[in-house]
């Protein structure tokens, strides 16, 4: 599902970052890439704050909708 629709407070696994190369590189630098874990902390009108490792990243709704995530399998 797109990150924008992920449940608040639940750790998700990034499946795919569907963005242009420049945005993808920017996100990678901040630790958002496929395989990374992130937790949505708060939503404000589609814009959101996510926790990635030790940092908090704010992203707007367009970006959030282009990051596909899934629930982390509990046995992994």
């Amino acid at each position: 599902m797109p990150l924008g629709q992920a449940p608040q407070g639940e750790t998700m696994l990034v499946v795919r970052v569907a963005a242009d190369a420049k945005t993808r590189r920017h996100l990678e630098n901040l630790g958002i890439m496929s395989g990374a874990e992130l937790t949505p902390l708060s939503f404000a009108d589609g814009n959101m704050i996510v926790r990635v490792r030790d940092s908090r990243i704010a992203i707007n709704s367009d970006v959030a909708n282009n990051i596909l995530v899934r629930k982390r399998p509990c046995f992994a």
Partner: protein
Amino acid sequence: MIDENPDLIINIVDATNLERNLYLTTQVLEADVPVIVALNMMDAVERSGDEIDVKGLEQALGVPTMPISALKGKGIKELMARALDEGKTKRKGASVLASCDCYPLIERIRDTIAKENIANPLFHAAKLVEGDSAECVRFPGIAKSLEEVKPMLGKNEYGDDYEAYVADMRYRYISSHYSPCLKRATHEARLSRSDKADKVLTHRIWAIPIFVLIMFAVFHITFSEDILFLNSWFGVEVTNELFASALMIEPGDVGIPSLGVWLQSLLGWCTGGLIDVSRDGLTDAGYAGTWVEGFLCDGLLSGIDSVLSFVPQVLLLYLFLSILEDTGYMARVAFILDRAFRRFGLSGRAFMPLLMCFGCAVPGIIATKALENEKERRLTIMLSPFFSCGAKLPIWATFAGIMANTYWSGYGDLVVFIMYFMGIAVAIIAAIILKLTALKGDPPPFIMELPAYHRPQFKSTMIHLWDKAKHLLVRTGTVIAVSIIVIWFLSSFGKGGYCDIDDSILGYLGKGLQYLFYPVFAAPNGFATTEASNAYAWRFVVAAFTGLIAKEMVVATLGTLAGVDGDAILEGAASEADQTAFDAMIGSMTPAAMFAYMAFNLFSVPCMAAVGAAMGELKSRKRSWQAIGFWLLTAYVVSFVVFWLGNFNTYMWGMSLAVTLILVTLCALLAWKVVTNFKTKQATAANVGANESALGAAATHDESEVE
């Protein structure tokens, strides 16, 4: 690098961002060359409390790994010694992709390249599979057959994007094999407190009201003449003479000044004293009334005085902004305003430069450097003068005082407020128009790391403050000082040499140009009587012209043109007769013309220093001229509209009506276009979201089958 046949590669890695930087290492390891990995910036890693298990990492990488700190010169000798040893050995390249689905393909290409006796076949093979353009040019045959083979291999989760696939595989290997060697110190206690603060400060509903309140407090402490509204709400007055003089006010003045206003008065008192002393000195030396006295006292010193007069307030404003920036709050503000700004073609990042423009447009324009997107930077620069700067405040204050005396007693503050508000409103309209026409395109995506909240540190706050203030001090100190001398020259010399401003170059210019300003404020119906318009119109034009060079000159020039000491008017220290003469000149304007005149000053070219800054940031002569043209056009159009709307009841009402109707239609059309534009965008966003979630569901499904 690889083609130079090195004996050894030393791969220097930024250890503070280990995972990201080991990506290159995974590629380097594919070459058949001995490799040493040097972990740089280990001092910073230790300081942050993180730990790296260097021995463990060395085992995982399979090559020697050394901690160093280039900054402190630590570990360099050991690194060099080991490099000399290692360079004598041979090494065969190995790939972290060995367990991937695509590895058989890489192996086949490697063998093909090896047959041609080219060094480092594995390295080239991996690059070719990634689709690296330089490699494809070098091995056109292999690249071509690869293009044919790839579609037959079936799709992975990246479709046929092998570059992304290989990158992902490398990162996965890094996080499973190398990351365990990195132990991060947990900052969870501080972070969870920060998250709690964010629950309130970035709340869906409360974020904006809290932000407005904080901004109001900052502006109140910086610009208010009546702190906490003690006078207007509670009737508090200072009657004690000693106390009043300590506050730099007259006993019985309305209101206790805020910190910013007090600092400004204090500085004005100092520079005013300096001018008086030098004037007395020059009179004693027999220079009274000559151009020497004029140049030194009216040109140079008054110029410096008027530049310095608004510096304390701007510095105070920037100090508050720096403190807010240092606590981490400003990053949140960019986030909460992003959605609103997006509708006007800006991202939340543009907020800081625009806010700085309320102090001074020069540092504001220079702060647009932080905006990556070029269109957004241009748009921000073009809007910058509309956020009323510190040098314009005296103009509003002067007109507001006279309007309050003549028309609306006690509503002087409201006039000043209207000017600030008009600036913001026009900025929004202008942004929308520019976004729909000249600067089409969406603002860049908003991605920003939010630092944890922390108490402001004196040193870093001062660094932030200096970043903002240095441009103000340096540029205004040079450009504006020179501009003011130029204005002094133009207004003191004419055909007959040193003369009154009436006969000066500037005087002639004003008399000639006044007809150009008929539609915007100088028409006879802009004045209480026609005689007044004949006598005064050109003087307002001249003052507005000096305002294009430096806004702090407008009131001073109006004073000079009324035949009184302009600086004394500014500081409220003019004699009663002077003040009456000055008020009579300004008061001859109708309120509509006054507002139109203020609007012209607000929207036109802010000052030469700002033009210089804009030229520096736009990096193009053509674009700079476009910006200047845009400012003049906006100023002319807005003051035209204000003037005609204000003259609705006079004999020109027919024309006013026509103009008003056209404008209302235009605005309505514009608003409609913006609304529909926004709606379609939302619709497409929702569609994309739905498609993506379908995709996401499919992906989840596939994976569960595999499991």
